């Protein structure tokens, strides 16, 4: 598979659970911990919007909401956006860099809800 270059204007999509547990706060923003990579990840998993569709990326509208981050926003915070295709998901990418609690909050606060359908 060919890796694509992630451009500054690209949108990066991340699923956020909103049922059991509910990660969406009363003001509509996701909790900071929704934008924190787990220890087994080499970065924060996202999908590159231009390589997928919101309907496919969200997997289940019953369980998740979809949020997007502008690629230039993450690079301005010192991160590197890397296309990382995986089995069954060519659009998969990783936001790589040093995640701190405050950075995760900044990402969560900056994320914009993507409406499906």
């Amino acid at each position, binding site marked *: 598979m060919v890796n694509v270059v992630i451009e500054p204007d690209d949108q990066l999509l991340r699923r*956020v659970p909103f049922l059991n547990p*509910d990660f969406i706060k*009363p003001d509509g923003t996701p*909790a*900071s*911990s*929704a934008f*924190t990579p*787990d220890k087994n990840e080499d970065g924060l998993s996202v999908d590159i919007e231009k390589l997928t569709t919101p309907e496919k990326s969200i997997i289940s509208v019953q369980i998740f909401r979809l949020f997007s981050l502008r690629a230039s926003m993450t690079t301005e915070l010192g991160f590197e956006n890397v296309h990382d295709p995986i089995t069954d998901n060519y659009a998969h990418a990783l936001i790589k860099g040093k995640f701190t609690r405050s950075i995760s909050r900044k990402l969560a606060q900056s994320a914009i809800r993507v409406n499906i359908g």
Partner: protein
Amino acid sequence: MQVLQKSKQVARKSSAYTGTTYLSIQPCEWFQFSYFTASTIFSDNLYNFLDESARDVLLRINKMQKLKTGWNGYGAIPPSEISVKNAIGFVSENAKHRIPYYFAAPGVNGEVLLEIKSDDKVAEIYFNPDHSSELLLYKNEELVLEGTIEENRIEFLSFFS
């Protein structure tokens, strides 16, 4: 103890019942908190003293205990018993301070996150599986303090006073 009649009946029927505390959160719901220690058991007086935001985060924390690995659609692990116990303990021990809890969420690495909010002031407290904690205070979304809740309890309380 804050006990609903229903939970008493269930407890009596259970042969495994060993005196675990049952705590009512909302009128029609009851939950078994199995992680209470002697210092975090809610007495009637303490439970009645909790405001709605504290009861709501307790409900959220309790639900986190049922999560399975991968609950976030990626690779998150469930909150650890230690994280849950310490988060509940924090709510219990600070009941008298009327902390304006805003949200509670699990972390992806076994933590429990409490968010406290009042106007333009926000605090995030992470209770980690290794017993450590992390406190972050924000004003107008600018980070103004980062440390542990143990070392910054006075600063935390005065931040919202």
